[in-house]
């Protein structure tokens, strides 16, 4: 499985309007629920997990977040990508008191804990690539975002 097989056009958002983290989680979870990717417990659990174990990551040039939760709330695997219109505050993965301005988030819906190494490695390689991250941030439209992700 390759990283791009996990992107779903309906779960890619460019210039996403979200007031805050919680609003983003609600919007994404509802959409994923509507499409059958998660069950109705996903939203509350992805929020709960983010509060306990934040997923913001400070990269060299910007910050991203990779929210996720336990496998039991995921019906069908996906990676949802959001580029926010306005940055959203996430706490840092290594320090809950550090607030990061996140413009790009990858919500992971995984339910095969020990077989996703390849996909996750590809995602980590992607976020470590400044050029690719900048391309996603500057995509300009949803179509462009989709195109970049397809060509990864």
């Amino acid at each position, binding site marked *: 499985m390759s990283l791009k097989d996990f992107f779903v056009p309906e779960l890619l958002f460019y210039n996403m309007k979200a007031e805050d983290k919680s609003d983003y989680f609600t919007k994404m979870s509802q959409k994923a629920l509507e499409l059958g990717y998660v069950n109705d417990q996903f939203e509350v659990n992805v929020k709960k*997990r983010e509060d*306990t*174990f*934040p*997923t913001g*990551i*400070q*990269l*060299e040039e910007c910050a991203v977040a*990779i929210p*996720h*939760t*336990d*496998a039991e709330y995921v019906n069908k695997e996906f990676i949802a990508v959001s580029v926010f219109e306005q940055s959203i505050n996430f706490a840092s*993965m*290594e*320090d*809950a008191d550090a607030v990061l301005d996140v413009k790009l988030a990858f919500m*992971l819906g*995984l339910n095969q*804990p*020990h077989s*996703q*190494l390849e996909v*996750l*490695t590809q995602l*980590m390689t992607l*976020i*470590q690539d400044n050029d690719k991250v900048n391309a996603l941030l500057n995509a300009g439209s949803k179509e462009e975002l989709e195109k970049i992700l397809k060509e990864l």
Partner: protein
Amino acid sequence: MSKKILVACGAGIATSTVVCNKVEQLVKDNNIDAEVIQCKIAEVKSKQEGADLIVSTTILPTKYDIPAIIATGYITGINMKALDQKILDELNK
């Protein structure tokens, strides 16, 4: 004597998978006999007996009896070499 390393993240599903792989590769490359166990951070407390080191990708909610290293560097790509060294130093103690 064989070492035992716990690799933990919040859910034991995403970031720890990547870090697990990095740590496994690291010990292999350095000919260290070690068992790498992936788990949820909440399980660390009960699994730490007999283990030598905790490598976590997230904040640690509590203090442990064995050394703990936060390894977000494997995810961000920042200071990975220094992180390798820190883990090796701990295992070679």
